[in-house]
Every structure is written in C-alpha cells, then in structure tokens.
C-alpha cells in the first residue's frame, strides 16, 4: 500500500480514486516482506495463488504450514499463517504430527523436488500411504535451487546441472522420478495433480487445483498432492523467458500436466 500511496502523490491522483485505481492487490494472507526469490522464479506466483485460496476460503486462522529446507524454507516470512520450519525431507512427518493432534486444522507442506522426492521419499510415500489428510505442495524445478544447482531426482535426462555437468546420464545417475504418478497408485491419496504457473491460463488452473485440494481436506478425503512444474532461471542459467520456454518444450513434455488422480465421483 505504501508504494501505491507514493504513486498517488507522485502522479497527483486524487485520493478519492484510489479504490478505482486498485485493480490488483496481493492477498491479506501474505505479509509485506519482499520475496527473496530470484527474478522469474515460480515460487512467488505459487505463494500468491495458494494464499489467495486460503484468504478466499476464510481459513487463515485455521491453517498451519510446514516449510522444510530448500529455497522456500523462508516461506514463513511471507505466508501470514502459523508455520513450522522442518528438517530437510521431513515435512510430511512433521505435518502428520500436526494433523493427528489438530485434525480440524488445515495443514499443508511446501516442498521442493530434492526435499520431497530424494531425502524425504520415505516420509512422502508413507504419509500418502496412511492417507494423512493434508495437502502436499510440491514444486518441481528439476534442480536443487538453494544449494545452487545440483542434480535433483527430477532432473531430466541429459539436463546439465553442477553435479551432472555433462548432462544427466540415466545409466549411472538414475532416471527422472515421477513421484506424483508413484503416489497416485496408493489408496491413501485422494487427489494428485500436476500443474504449472508459467502462463496466465496455467496459473488459473493451478489455483483451481489448490481450491479443490483444500475442499477435499475439509471433507477428510485423504492426502492431496499438487505438483507445480516450475522453473529455476538462475540455476538453469537462463533468462526468465527462456526458462518458461524450457518448461513448455522440455519439462511438461516429460512431466505432463493435468489430474493424475481425482476422488471418486468428483
């Protein structure tokens, strides 16, 4: 709001027209702290649309989030809800603890690919297998962002990272892991979907997925996992636009978008 006020003064916009000028604002469920994410990174968009859902559904005072190690470990600086920071990979275990003792709260984890699909694979699979009634937000950008660009379990075949500088060799370094498809097979999961935020239409679809996931949690249907195929311009060594093109041409051709599993009758 301070920026808007400054702009009003600078351009001498009559005070009376502030509301008319305000066609866009961030949700009240986000704090005023500037995001630390790199220019072009998808985290900011995901934070915003998810917290919009929390605001619109009136759940700010009922929501508890878990932010484990990764670029988004500081999510609690931005999301204006009660939050716990978790050890690398352990978000699903921490969320299990929270949801089991406070079953009427909305609980979510916000995890990267290394966290969820490498070091935390066991916690992820077993939380899904028990049908823990919380939402897993899974940001897949095919690279370790926070530690500056090492190979992730989801790194594409042939993709260059600092620990696969000649391109991921699947014969020695394993194959990119489609963990969402894997957990969709488990009876405990209610809703598993893969979305992206690299185009406005996709952002709208991703937001709808979050809405559905929270509704299903309120209905107690089981584990919901929303994967967001995202970008990492800094570690991909690309401009934001080039990284979006890479999502379009390389990422979503392998990690195809859409619902993988929906609850029966939905």
């Amino acid at each position, binding site marked *: 709001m301070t920026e808007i006020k400054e702009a009003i003064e600078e351009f001498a916009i009559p005070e009376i027209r502030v509301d008319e000028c305000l066609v866009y604002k961030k949700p009240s469920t986000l704090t005023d702290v500037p995001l630390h994410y790199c220019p072009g990174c998808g985290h900011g968009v995901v934070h915003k649309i998810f917290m919009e859902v929390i605001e619109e559904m009136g759940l700010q*005072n009922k929501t508890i989030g878990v932010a484990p190690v990764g670029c988004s470990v500081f999510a609690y600086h931005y999301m204006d809800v*009660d*939050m716990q920071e978790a050890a690398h990979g352990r978000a699903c*275990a921490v969320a299990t*603890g929270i949801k089991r003792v406070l079953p009427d709260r909305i609980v979510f984890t916000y995890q990267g690919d290394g966290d969820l699909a490498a070091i935390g694979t*066991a916690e992820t699979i077993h939380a899904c297998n028990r049908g823990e009634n919380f939402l897993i937000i899974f940001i897949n950008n095919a690279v370790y962002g926070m530690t500056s660009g090492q190979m992730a379990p989801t790194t594409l075949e042939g993709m260059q990272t600092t620990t696969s500088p000649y391109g991921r060799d699947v014969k020695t370094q394993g194959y990119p892991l489609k963990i969402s498809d894997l957990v969709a097979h488990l009876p405990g999961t209610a809703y598993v979907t893969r979305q992206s935020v690299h185009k406005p239409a996709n952002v709208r679809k991703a937001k709808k997925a979050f809405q559905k996931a929270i509704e299903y949690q309120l209905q107690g249907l089981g584990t919901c996992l929303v994967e967001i195929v995202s970008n990492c311009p800094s570690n991909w060594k690309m401009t934001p636009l080039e990284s979006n093109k890479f999502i379009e041409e390389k990422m979503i051709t392998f990690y195809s978008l859409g619902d993988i599993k929906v609850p029966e009758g939905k």
Partner: protein
Amino acid sequence: MGDIKLMKGNEALAEAMIRAGCDAYFGYPITPQSEVIEYLSREVPLRNTGMIVLQAESEVAAINMLYGAGGCGKKVMTTSSSPGISLMQEGISYIAGAEIPCVIANINRGGPGLGTIQPSQGDYFQATKGGGHGDYHLIVLVPSSVQEMVDFVKLAFDLAFKYRNPVMILADGAIGQMMEKVELFEQVPRATVLPDWATTGKREGEERRILTSLFIQPEEMEKVNLRLQEKYRQIEKNEVMFEVQNIDDAEYIFTGYGLAARICKKAMEIGREKGYKIGLIRPKTVYPFPYNVYANLTHKLKGILDVEMNAGQMVEDVRLAVEGKTRVEFYGRMGGMIPSPDEILDYFEKQFIKGGE
C-alpha cells in the same frame, strides 16, 4: 494412593505415559523397548483419554512427528533404543533449537553399530553431551527402578514444558525388561488449553506463530544461542537430582547411575559388612549433573569408584567434579555384560584399595 501392580519397566513406562495425560505417542519398534508401543497399541488410550498412538515408518519420521505435534503445544513422547536414538539425533537438535517440549526415552542397548540387544549404558555421552549437532542440552533423567520409570515420565513432561526443552529418560535394557512392584499415579487429564507459543492457527488480531531453528544472520543466531545457554544455566541451578547413602562417615564412594547404581548399592552393603566405610552417590539427573555433591566430599575421601555398563563415560563428569582432589577410578563391563556386586567389591579390595597405597 494409585494402583499397585507388578509390571515390566517398558510397560510401566507406557502406562505412565497414558496416565500423565500424554496427547500423542509416535514410535518405531526396536528391541529392547518394543513392549512400549505394543502395550499402547493394545490399550488403545484413544478410547479413554483421547491419546493418539502411531507407528511411524522410521525413527527419523517418529522424531519429526514429535516435532510437529509438540509444536502444537501437545504433550508428546517417543521411545527407542540406541541405534534408533542415533537416527533421531538430527530431529532432536531441531527440537532443541525450536524449543519444542517433548519426552524421549532411550532404553539403552549395547553398541557400537548394531551391537547387541542386551542392556548397556553406552549412550551416556550421546545423551548428556549433545548427540546431535550444535550447542544444546537435553534434560536427562536416569531411572534405576521400574518405579522411577513411572515417576520420571510425569516429571519429564513437567520439566519439558517448564523449560520448553526436550527431556530424555535414559534407562537400559534391563530396567526396561525387568518386572517390579510399582505404584501408579492417578490419571492426569489431558491439557485443554494450549500454550501461546504453539502453532495452532493464527489468532484474530495477533501475530502468527513460527517455530524454527533457522536464523541466517549470525548476530541473531548468537542471540538465540545465548538465550538457550541462559536456559541451560537455569536448569543446572534448579533441576539437579541425586540420591546419597552412608556419606557421613564414608571414606570411599561407589557411584553410578541407573542399573549400575543398584549394583553399587548392593556392593556397598556387602563392603560395609566387611568393615569398609563406603557411601553411595546416585545421580537421578545426569544433565544437569550433580557436580557439587562429589566436590563437597573430596576433603574426607580416600577415593571414588565409578561403576558403569560402558567403557567409562560418566566417570569423566565425576573427575570434573572433584578437580583432582581425590582419586577417581573406573570399573565397567561392556557389550551387554552386567557387573555383579561381588565383582565390584572384588575389584575394590584387590585393585582399588591397593592402588591407593
């Protein structure tokens, strides 16, 4: 007066957990403490007190479930044995850093490595000197009877919430497995009001609650550390617990904790019958350690014999306590071997006394 029962240490611990008003237990089976989760699974405390019991996929998951549920201000507990406790160390460090109250029982078995399922006290260093990374302390209670397995559960929860600090009950496989008469305390109702710091959902008009051990700015991280250290100094000042016997006329002290202390007590009694003026010091807390009780006796002692079921761990704290003013020697067995009272007295007569001449 509560119920009097004949119970196995592990089962008494589990029953005490329910009666102490525990909200949730998360654990993973490991010998010699699997009776705890078996007892809880059989009793289904959910029906009576509403307590949650969940078998986790690993000790790593169990300790992090404790972090999450404890972070909501609930009374939470886990139990394990040595290799499982090793797996939990990362989580314990996070719990200490985020100042989440919880209780962890280690029914110590022999190591290193997979070791043996027989009783041991090899985890003293791990429990009292850190175990995980960073500058932190657990409050460590060391029961030497099935009765104390019961009493210390209630005490552990009180201390955990008083200081917002993890508390460890460090027992050994023998205390966990043996049966003794116990008096059980009356059922404590589960708490209905959750603490202000707990993440339970942001309250209208209030700041959100954040539980974290991450402070990226060194100035801020140092402040957090200083605050934690101040808390540990308070714990050291207020919470030391120990038992002494026959120290008034004692020329020698036998000392040990847990099962070793019980054996020392018998050895002391046999020694006294033979005319040796032996006293006993048994710490009930090993962090904070009762340094003063040793230090205050040094002027009149000929020596202290420290007995443990390890290669000599608590003996380092005893030596710190006496600052070289009296002789401290160690007798221990390892690998699941339990010393007998005669064996201790034999060592005392043939080695210890002679060594002092």
